[in-house]
């Protein structure tokens, strides 16, 4: 079955198994055009840099607008007259569609729309969602705002998948790490800029209109929506350039190469389920907290509005430079579970600090930022170690789905807890979530230890074992090839299924095992937000 899937995917599957083997790749196409200016030639660096910039800005709008509610919490609650639970529903409504959609994002891009049209459609969803969101504020209809967030959510998460697919299709090979890193940093910059600028825009609009109120809020959100239009423009240009490159270089349309089979869920190991628990509980204690953070710092620590925005965005700011550093560190050292354990304990300490002390919250938030970056780098690659490659798409899709489910539920619960029990209890609740995550990490450690899993191996050991496995596979492959050759001799008319299979397996055996799974991890990094 796995073999068949590989065959169906075709060699264009960038993020999927057998990725990296694009025969019509960007290197020396036959009959490429001559005499194009550097900026117009898809093979030349300046042009690729242009594409890279467009890719980065493609997600800017959705990341900018995702945290609009957090940046304007006081204003939203005052102007729309909603309590915190209903306010947090704005985040929940973003997550609901993604509980289902993350299974289909890859499918839609690969089979239905194609990467170009898909990206444009998802960008339009993001734009329309943000406009509906703003209109809801203008018309003083909170339900319309919620509807806007729902539409925004439909586009937002899938757009991130599309963004990664573009990256894989253009920058396969050495540059890919850097490109993913840049995209991730851009996402952080989008969130940070939003946190720090929306309040200022609101006060400008307030000066303009001479009053606060739902129309001021609506206009502010409309202005925020300009970033989405900008991203849509990027999507359109990118589609044009991609099409052009396809014509000039005979390059295939990028594909996510994701295969989702829900029946695989029953085969998931205990370790994988524990990883799911860690993921859901951990992120549930980070994102809803940031969503409520600004007002928390104002009310508990008496911060000014600007200062609160700044400290609330510090987690994103820290993770921008730290993610690559930790990524490298975890890659070199291995021992993923220990890193995850450190990250979870640090996060727990920072939440406890915020809950039970009046210590300067910059300390706690910086710790949270560091822990959050570390966790992202150590946790996500672990999935690839406990799941067979052909189930990876399902595993990540499932993980993203329950993460969204968890986020939606916890967001609403957090709002309700804040309204009725206050910040201390909210922080205790978040700490309890982190503790649940800690329990799962400890269990994972022991389960892994007892079953002799490879999650906590050091990188050196992993490499050594991989080498052994690779030589073994090569040997097997050699035998099989010989066998097949013999068979082929017997049956000269080989169908293209077996041809493709041979081609693929040839490629597959030469690639290091973790190569394609690493790509898959990165293609799903939209979850790392």
């Amino acid at each position: 079955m796995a073999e068949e899937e590989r065959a169906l995917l075709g060699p264009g599957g960038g993020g999927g198994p057998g990725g990296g083997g694009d025969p019509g790749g960007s290197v020396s196409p036959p009959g490429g055009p001559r005499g194009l200016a550097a900026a117009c030639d898809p093979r030349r660096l300046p042009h690729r840099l242009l594409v890279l910039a467009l890719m980065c800005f493609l997600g800017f709008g959705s990341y900018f607008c995702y945290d609009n509610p957090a940046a304007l919490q006081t204003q939203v609650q005052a102007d729309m007259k909603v309590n915190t639970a209903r306010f947090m529903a704005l985040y929940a409504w973003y997550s609901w569609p993604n509980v289902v959609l993350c299974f289909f994002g890859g499918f839609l891009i690969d089979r239905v729309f194609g990467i170009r049209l898909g990206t444009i459609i998802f960008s339009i969803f993001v734009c329309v969602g943000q406009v509906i969101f703003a209109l809801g504020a203008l018309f003083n209809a909170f339900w319309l705002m919620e509807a806007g967030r729902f539409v925004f959510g439909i586009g937002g998460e899938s757009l991130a998948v599309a963004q990664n697919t573009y990256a894989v299709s253009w920058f396969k090979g050495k540059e890919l790490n850097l490109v993913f890193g840049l995209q991730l940093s851009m996402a952080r910059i989008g969130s940070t800029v939003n946190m720090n600028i929306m309040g200022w825009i609101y006060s400008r609009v307030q000066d303009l209109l001479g009053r606060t109120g739902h129309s001021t809020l609506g206009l502010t959100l409309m202005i925020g929506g300009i970033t989405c239009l900008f991203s849509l423009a990027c999507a359109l240009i990118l589609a044009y350039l991609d099409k052009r490159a396809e014509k000039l270089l005979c390059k295939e349309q990028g594909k996510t190469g994701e295969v989702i089979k829900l029946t695989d869920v029953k085969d998931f190991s205990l370790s994988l389920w524990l990883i799911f628990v860690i993921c859901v509980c951990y992120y549930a204690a980070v994102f809803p907290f940031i969503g409520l953070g600004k007002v928390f710092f104002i009310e508990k620590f008496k911060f000014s509005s600007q200062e609160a925005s700044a400290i609330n965005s510090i987690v994103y700011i820290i993770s921008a430079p730290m993610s690559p550093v930790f990524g490298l560190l975890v890659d070199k050292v291995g021992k993923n579970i220990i890193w995850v354990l450190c990250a979870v304990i640090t996060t727990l300490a920072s939440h406890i600090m915020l809950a039970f002390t009046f210590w300067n919250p910059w300390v706690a938030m910086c710790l949270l930022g560091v822990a959050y970056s570390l966790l992202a780098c150590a946790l996500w690659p672990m999935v690839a170690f406990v799941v067979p490659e052909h189930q990876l798409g399902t595993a990540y899709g499932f993980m993203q789905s329950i993460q969204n489910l968890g986020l939606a539920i916890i967001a609403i619960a957090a709002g309700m807890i804040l309204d009725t029990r206050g910040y201390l209890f909210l922080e205790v609740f978040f700490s309890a979530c982190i503790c649940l995550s800690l329990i799962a990490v400890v269990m994972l450690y022991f389960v892994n230890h007892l079953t002799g899993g490879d999650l906590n191996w050091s990188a050196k050991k992993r490499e050594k074992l991989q080498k052994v496995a690779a030589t073994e596979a090569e040997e097997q492959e050699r035998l099989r090839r010989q066998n097949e050759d013999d068979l082929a001799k017997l049956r000269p008319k080989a169908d293209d299924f077996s041809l493709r299979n041979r081609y693929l397996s040839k490629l597959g055996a030469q690639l290091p095992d973790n190569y394609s799974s690493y790509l898959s991890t990165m293609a799903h990094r939209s979850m790392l937000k």
Partner: protein
Amino acid sequence: MLLLAALLAAAGGGGRREVSMQYNPGWNNSSVNLLHVRAVGQNDTLHYVWSSIGAPAALLVATGSQSSTLHVNWTRLLSPAPAGAIWIEPPGSVVYSTAVVFTKVFEYSKADTPEELFYPAYDLSSFSWDSINRTLNHTALTAEFLGVPASDPSGSFSNGSLAFRVTAYEANGRDGPLPSLLHTANSSKVEFVLAGVAPRGNGSRFALEVATVEEPGVARRLRSARSIDDEYTPTIFETLSLAAEARNASAALSFLQWKATAYGSRSPKREDGIRCRAHGLQAANWTLPASGVIRAYFGEGLGSAYAVSAINISFGGEDGEVYQEKRYLSWSALLGFGQPPEDTFSPLVISIMAVALGTPMALLLVGSVVVLFAQRKCYSEYEPIN
């Protein structure tokens, strides 16, 4: 003074008081309001005298006897010179007395002007008060003083009123509705309510002037305590109290305690919160509170022997427009004897933290044991051949 502490400590141990309310004792007329709350403990009695004769006020007297009684000479009390019209029998049983007077309500506006614009203040001593007889509830131990200005040229009070709701407590406990103040048997609650009063400008904010009267050698001090525990009053971390302290000791003799919030709704929720601040406690011996009971009890010494100090408590933050929309403001404060009560972590919070932190530790322990055991078993499989 030490005696008071000893008395209250004894009462605090028992925790319960026999509370009775009496309306206008010895006077069969409901044109004026005087409410006597008598809280009898194991070996002491606390007297609270609430009255709207003149400005609304509460007189608090602690006595060291279970049988001390309040006496009122009504003709003198209602005369222009009421000194000596209220006294406790036997006089020697009085341990400590203090008073809190609500003198004025200010209305001011910050809108569009650099400095605050003050409207003419409402002088609470010139209000006309409804009879509290109808609102008196002897089982819930509550009563409400409802008033409107005797003359209301601006018509602000045509649809509104100002009220002080009084609640007496028999035992330790906590209020249900926000701000859910923790109370002891040595305290009572007063709730200041402004309902339906039309603001005289855009962005009007209100402030309440509170005056206190202290015995010689005792002074009021504004204490501001920030606590991490906002479980009972969500998102409010600051508790303010106006504590009466003897010059040579820091233990409070009596207190007026409140959370730094008011609420803009009849059924208060977190989002109805109105920021509440206290401004500059200062001696105010030059303006004697125009309250009948206070003058009657403290007599001529008021302002000289008995020090008067005043504080303004303002409602509404920088952009507080909550009142404009809801036309409702309620502020609760606790007044009582001894140390003001302090919130502690609820059992729920403690147990959640204990379970949350304890389980991973326990798991780590159990896991280690299991792993060790498994390893030993592993080794034991290799039996020596010979």
